């Protein structure tokens, strides 16, 4: 009886993880790696809450701070998501809230609440390459890009900071902000460790680095990430604190009601 049990468990293990094991040993395509990386990075957990501290530093070292609480809820793995953001800092945008319905196949829906005039404004969102709150991160950097939008090639395997990773080149299929992106993706957990964005002159103009990765609620999370504009010297460092996953955030939070009256229990 015991033997049968062990056999069944082993078989289950094989069915569930064997597939992955085999692929990881060489069968994974560049497209599969990018797809898996997007899920690990942007779709971890069913929902998420984090306090994000962003420092925007210009080449002279002058610093600006953006502090916000971010809520995210996934509706389908790799599919629709909703985001809610509440700004704590700087003082002139304090209490501003921002909501995004993210659809991988069409433009986002975005709403901004400006507390000073009690106005809920609809934000035109067809430019996913515009800067997120003045930082070096674009909206796409913050919420992800569909793997189908680029052609991916596995260049080589590499070791970055002692970690095995895949180095992948992604070329956009249609006009994009960049002409080429090179990504270093952790071979074990698929988080992006480094990304370099190339411009028309084939020069790196933006560089992303994951500087700290920690297990939060059992989910590996990039808790410190930096995006540097190598042309202007401007850089943005985002630190994620108090990251929690699978909190059961209600669908109703992502509504005009809570844009106007920030949900105290979630944003603290």
């Amino acid at each position, binding site marked *: 009886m015991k033997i049968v049990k062990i056999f069944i468990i082993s078989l289950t293990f094989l069915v569930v993880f064997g597939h992955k094991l085999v692929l990881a040993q060489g069968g994974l395509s560049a497209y599969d790696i990018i797809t898996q990386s997007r899920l690990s990075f942007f779709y971890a957990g069913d929902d998420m809450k984090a306090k994000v501290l962003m420092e*925007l530093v*210009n080449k002279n070292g*002058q610093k*600006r*701070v953006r502090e916000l609480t971010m809520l995210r809820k996934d509706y389908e793995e790799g599919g629709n998501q909703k985001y809610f953001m509440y700004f704590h*800092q*700087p*003082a*002139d945008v*304090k*209490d501003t809230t921002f909501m995004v*319905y993210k659809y991988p196949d069409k*433009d986002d*829906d975005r709403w901004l609440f400006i507390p*000073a*005039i*009690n*106005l*809920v404004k*609809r*934000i*035109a*969102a*067809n*430019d996913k*390459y*515009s*800067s997120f*709150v*003045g*930082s*070096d991160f674009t909206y796409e950097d913050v919420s992800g890009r569909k793997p189908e939008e680029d052609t991916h090639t596995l260049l080589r395997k590499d070791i970055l900071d002692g970690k095995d990773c895949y180095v992948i080149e992604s070329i956009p299929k249609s006009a994009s902000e960049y002409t080429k992106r090179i990504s270093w993706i952790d071979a074990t957990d698929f988080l992006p460790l480094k990304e370099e964005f190339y411009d028309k002159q084939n020069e790196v103009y933006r560089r992303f680095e994951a500087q700290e990765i920690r297990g939060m609620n059992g989910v590996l999370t990039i808790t410190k990430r930096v995006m540097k504009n190598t042309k202007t010297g*401007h850089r943005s460092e985002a630190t994620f604190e108090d990251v929690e996953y699978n909190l059961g955030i209600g669908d*109703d939070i992502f*509504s*005009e*009601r809570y844009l106007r*009256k920030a949900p*105290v*229990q979630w944003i603290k």
Partner: protein
Amino acid sequence: MDKIRIRTLFMIIMSGALFFNLEEVGADVSKFHGFAEMDYGAKVSDDNTKRDNFNLLEQRLQLKTMYTFEGENYEPRGVHSHKPNVVYGYLAEKSSVLNFKGDFTVDEYFSGKTDFELRELNITLTPYRLMDAQFGRQIITWGTGDYLFVNDLFPKDYISFFIGRDDEYLKKPSDAMKLSFYPSPANVDFVVSPFEPNTIPEGDRLSFFDSFQGGIAGVNSDRDLLEPPLQLSNNEYALRIYRNFESNELAFYYFRGFDKNPTSYKDEAARQLFYPRLDVYGTSLRGPTSGGIGNIEFGYYNSREDSGGNNRLIANSLFKVLTGYEKDLGSDLKIGLQYLYEQTSDYGNYKANLLPTDFVFDESRHLLAQRITKLYKNQTIAVSLFNFYSPSNRDGYVRPTASYNISDQWKATLGANLPWGEDDLTEFGQMKRNKNVFFRARYSF
């Protein structure tokens, strides 16, 4: 004026008492935020207002704070009995929040007059899962326009707008009760408030078209604006029902109250104007359209005291339609276009009842508005041009602004208000002698 002062004083005492009470029961009053600001606006055209070289020179300190009631088994500090505070307990249970925002001002236009303007003092609570309530002084905004309003009949301050104060001051607060319901088919907002008029030019700071003076008037204007008396039957009611259909937002509006502007004559000999009763029925739709955001909004203004349009002293009913489109062109460049059409109802009756000496206003008005905004240097510099143009009124209003966030605390804004017009009695034409250039420096904390 006295009424307002007494009310303000009452509000200050009330807010003081509230915060004192909170301290007393051991609550941690969360930090104060706000800004200190210096504003200066120089005139670039002549008129006969109180001062001929500037119409804005003031210092302002805004303080705001919010207090969240929380904790279920709350016990008052230093009190030996362990009896929980019932009121506090209720407010905490209903996730209540107390909001305060007030501006202390020193206005050099009126020779350094100091003032306190209470912008917000209200409490919001969630008495039931699908309902919110907000009581007290608050700013309420709805509708789909950009600087143009069809179904937002909440009070505005057009003097602030035309002299170059921050956009925040275009909206005046209402002393209101706002109830919001969120059942699944649609959301509902219901607002009750006493009448509060728009603040409009009256000659001392900004010149305007005064029909009693037969043209553009300044300090010589001596008209008398009669507000409806403060009584229950003069309360105003505003209703909005809205819901989303996928990415589109549909809303219906109803307003019952008074015209926000003194459009009608009570007694011509005594130069008295009043705010006639008004009902507004409206609807709006907003959503993604060809790579941008499109909106359309209708409103029918029923002038209840002259619904047939036969009384030449009272404004006729009116139909308004507003459409708009906004698009992000990339590289932090945005454009917005709007078109507003207004048509007076029963224009024939209006014309037939005019006296030969009356000024004649047109039956309809076309107004185009366009906004271009471009951000530079990691969105720290914002350059914006807002332009109104009415081909039917042959007037317009150009509003360029440039602002720079020097740091997270310091912000400098430079702008101009340039209304123009061929005639003296049109909306912007009457403002043409109020051209100004303004500068604001703000420190936020």
